Structure formats: structure tokens, C-alpha cells
């Protein structure tokens, strides 16, 4: 359980950087992340061990994703991201959103396709994560349960079943 949680956090970070990267390439105005080897890496004895590289991002260019509020294109509240689903290759497939309810009663966890999420671009300073689905499309989806077949709701409103986990 714990391990899975750790993985999902790590994956979150990777996914985020990837997502920001793609936006960065679209809007070429964004400075790319600077990658540089650590100073001491060159002088490593024997030269057998691989030294880590560091990637430096402006804190406005990347963000954590757990607990992030998601809204629809019409600015309806669509709940919060509570988990991220990856496949065996580590590719992010879906985000789990905690949808609906009042004071925590009646909310349901729904898996939505990762590419149905739109992240705030550089011009748009609202910091809002937008889900390209409507409340009506999401409310009918089946609930996400751990260790069960995951049914992912795509941006076209269609359902896609993942064989993992």
C-alpha cells in the first residue's frame, strides 16, 4: 500500500513536469528547464557510477497535483484529484477525482483520462485544472475501486477499460 502511494507521488511529479514540458513547447515563450550535471560528477572515482542530473524548474512552472481542485469548462466544481493511475510502463493513464457530495457524504471516486485534463497555460494565471467533461458525463461513470478493473472516462465521454492493475 505504502509503496504504491510513494510510486504515485513520484509519478505525479514526473507527469507534471512532462505536462509542463509539453505546454512549454507549445508556447515557446516559456524558458525550458535547465539541466546540468552536478559539479562533482565528473571527478567520480573509476567513473563507473552514474551521477544524477538535476533539473531546475521555476516553481510557477510545475505544481503538485494531489488535492488539486478540478473544474469543468463551464467552471463547475468537479471535485479534487486524489490519486494518479499509471500503467506498467509508468505512463500516466488517469487521474482519480473525488466527485460530488456535501461535507464528504455522497462523494464518489471516478477515474478520468489524463488527457481529458487541461493544465493552466502560461497566459492563464488562474492555476485552474480543467476537466473537459461535464458533470452529467462524470456522475454516471462507475466508481473507482482499488484492485478492480479500472474504467477510465475519456474526454469524448466514452469509457475505456484498463487491464492494469
Amino acid at each position, binding site marked *: *500500500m*505504502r509503496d*504504491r*502511494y510513494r510510486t*504515485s*507521488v513520484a509519478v505525479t511529479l514526473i507527469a507534471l513536469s512532462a505536462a509542463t514540458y509539453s505546454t512549454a513547447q507549445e508556447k515557446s515563450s516559456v524558458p525550458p528547464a535547465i539541466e546540468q550535471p552536478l559539479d562533482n560528477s565528473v571527478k567520480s572515482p573509476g567513473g563507473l557510477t552514474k551521477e544524477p542530473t538535476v533539473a531546475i524548474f521555476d516553481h510557477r512552472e510545475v505544481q*503538485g497535483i*494531489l*488535492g488539486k*481542485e478540478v473544474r469543468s469548462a463551464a467552471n463547475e466544481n468537479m471535485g*479534487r484529484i*486524489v*490519486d494518479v493511475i499509471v500503467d506498467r510502463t509508468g505512463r500516466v493513464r488517469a487521474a482519480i477525482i*473525488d*466527485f*460530488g*457530495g*456535501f*461535507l*464528504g*457524504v*455522497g*462523494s*464518489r471516486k471516478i477515474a478520468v483520462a489524463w488527457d481529458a485534463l487541461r493544465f493552466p497555460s502560461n497566459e492563464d494565471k488562474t492555476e485552474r485544472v480543467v476537466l473537459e467533461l461535464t*458533470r*452529467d458525463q462524470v*456522475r*454516471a461513470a462507475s*466508481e473507482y*475501486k482499488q484492485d*478492480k478493473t479500472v474504467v477510465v472516462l475519456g474526454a469524448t465521454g466514452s469509457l475505456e477499460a484498463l487491464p492494469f492493475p
Partner: protein
Amino acid sequence: MAAAPQGNPKGPAQNDPVPHPTRRSQRALDWFVFFVADVQTGFGPFVAVYLTAEKWTQVDIGLVLTVGSLVALVGQMPGGVLVDAAGSKRLAAGLATTVIAISALAYAASPVFAVVLAAAVLHAAASCVVGPAMAAISLGLVGHAAIGERLGRNARFAAIGNGLAAAAMGACGYLLSARAVFFVTAMLLAPALLALRLISSREIDPERAHGGPPELRAGVPPNRLAGLKRTRPLLIFAGCVMLFHLANAAMLPLMGSVLTTRSSQWPTVLIAACIVGPQLFVAILSPWVGRKSRAWGCRPLLLIAFAALPIRGLFFAAVANPYLLVAVQLLDGVAAAVLAVTVPLIIADLTHGTGHFNLAQGVVGTGIGIGASLSPTYAGYLSDYFGSSVAFLGLTAVAVLGWIAVWTKMPETRPRRESAIVGRE
């Protein structure tokens, strides 16, 4: 059994002087109950919402909630013993309320795993004290003869507190932040303690407050045998309320998620109505229940409450219209009003003259806790494999069992005559 006399059915024994609590103390107790209900509402399901917003994973949230409910379960009887032993019930209630407010502040100040876990444990432990302590103060203040009406009044103010707090905190969480809810919760400590201070401690008879016999002071030892004889009805009652909560606890959450899937318009408002609506019902009904509990006895009221539950379950299983679902949910208010009054009242009846009122509350509280914590697992299993309708039917079956248990096993406890308490044994 020495306490209740044969003669005057309404009045107490000659050696059980009728207490005359002042209006001010009664009012202050109203407000204390109101504010404690407010403080307690801030916890509950809202903790999960808040921790999710604070980037907690579902695994950690689940762990904290499980630990909290385990402590709440195990702490029931020690909490009761503590309140029985406490010289000042007012002090016990005040300290417990303060601890609850501190844990709310801890949640708000630093949502770090260790802090939140400690806060959850503290909150659960303090809740085990504050519940019995409130009932003990009531009993110590008004005495056994008037406790039915007083408990009706308590239930009314608790319901108003719960309903208002749920609405206000929902708005607060929506407009400000989930964290703000816990600051508001902690701030409610001040009026709660003020109200508690205004209850005159001289009017709370510590002996009466744990169901102790007034004749003890007159040199008569407490009747141990009577206490033993009444253990069986107490355990039967604990079993009945366990079945009730096993059937009841998962019903609202399950119905809420069904509502979320079915209603395209205003699902959040409908679920809010499902939470606040029954509280409104409790506020209206409970003083009447308090009076009737003495006029009719508790058994007929219990049978009504236990019958409302399976009816609700059947409707939830069969009905699809979201507005009708909300209307059926109001039935919960009937059952909640009856249980809020009769649970402490029956315990007070069964422990009158034994000095173990609060321990017995702990015993019944443990039953409630076991039922309520198994309920989501049971309903969740049924709903995963067979769908929500079957889950509702499964809960209904347990509720019917509970009704049968009350009908066949539960004696009337109203002390009109000697035989009413001990005689059925």
C-alpha cells in the same frame, strides 16, 4: 430494589428530594449541548475532505480515520468509568471539550501525519468522555424523575447545533477553505465553556449524576443485587442498538452516492438537505418524545424508531426519484429523535440506584460503535458485488432483525412500578 416507591407514580421517593434546578442552569445546559454539537460536527466526514485538500493520500486518510474510530470504540467504557468516578462532572465535560477544541486547532495548524494522528486519537478519547458527561450533568441537575423531558430538550439543542453547524461549515468550506472550518470549530470552544460555567455546579448532585442512590447518604448501602439483575436488559439493549446502527450507519453515505449518480441538478444541495433535514425533524420531535417516553414508556417509541429504519431501507432500494429519496431520508429524523432520548433514558432507568450510569452508557456506546463501524464494510461489500439496491435490502434485513429483537427481548424500563424494572427478569 429500594429507590422507586409504590405510591406516587410521577414523584420520586420521599428520600429522593426533588431537585429544583434554576432556569439559568437549565438554559446554560441547553447552550452547552448546542455548542458541543457544533464542535463535533466539524469533525466526522469533513476530516477526509480537508485532508484530501491538504494533499493527503487516501491510504493515510483511511488510516487516521480507522485509528480514530478504534479509539472511540475502545474508549467508551473507560470514558464512562472516568465520568462515574469524576467528582465534578462539569470539570470532566469542560476538560473533554477543551481537548476536542485543541485537536481541531491541531488539524488546522499543521496537517502533518503525526500531529493529525495524535489529534484524531485525542478527539476520539475526549468524545468518549463528553457524551456521558453531558448526560450525567443532565441527570445530576434534574434528577431521575424529570430526566425524560430534559433529554428531549438536550436532543433538540444538539439537533439544532448539528444542523446549523453542518450548513455553516459547508458554506465556510465552500467560500473560504477546508482549513477555516477547523479554526471555526476551535473557536466555538469559548461559548461552550461559557455556557458550561453558567450551569451552577451546586445544582449538579454528583451522586445523582452517576445514577447513585440518594439513600446512600442516609446510611443505606446500594443494592448490588438489583444492579446484577439489570445487567441482562442492559446487554439486550446494547445488542438492539448495535443492530440498529449496523443497519443505519451506511445508509446515508450509500444513499448519498446513489444520489450523486442519479441527480443531474443540485446533487450537492440534495445531499445537504439529507443531512440537515432529519436534524430539523429531531429538533421538532424530541421534546415530544421526551414527554411521551414517560407517558407511554420507551418500548412503543423504540418499536416506532426500529420500524422507521427498514421502511427507509426498502424505499431506498426501490425508489429512483432523487426528490423522493430526500423525503424518505426525513424518516431518519424520527428514529434519531427517539434514540437520542431513549438511549440515555433507558440506561438511566436500568442503572437507577447502582451508581454506574456512565459505565452503562459506555457499554451501550460500545455496542453502537461496533454496529456503526461494521456497517460500511457490510454495505460496501454488498454494493460492490450486487449493486446498491441489494445493499439497501441487506441493511433492511438487519433492521428487521433489530425490530424483532426489541419486540421479543427488550423489557419496558419505565419505573412506574417496582415490577416494571426488575419484574421481567
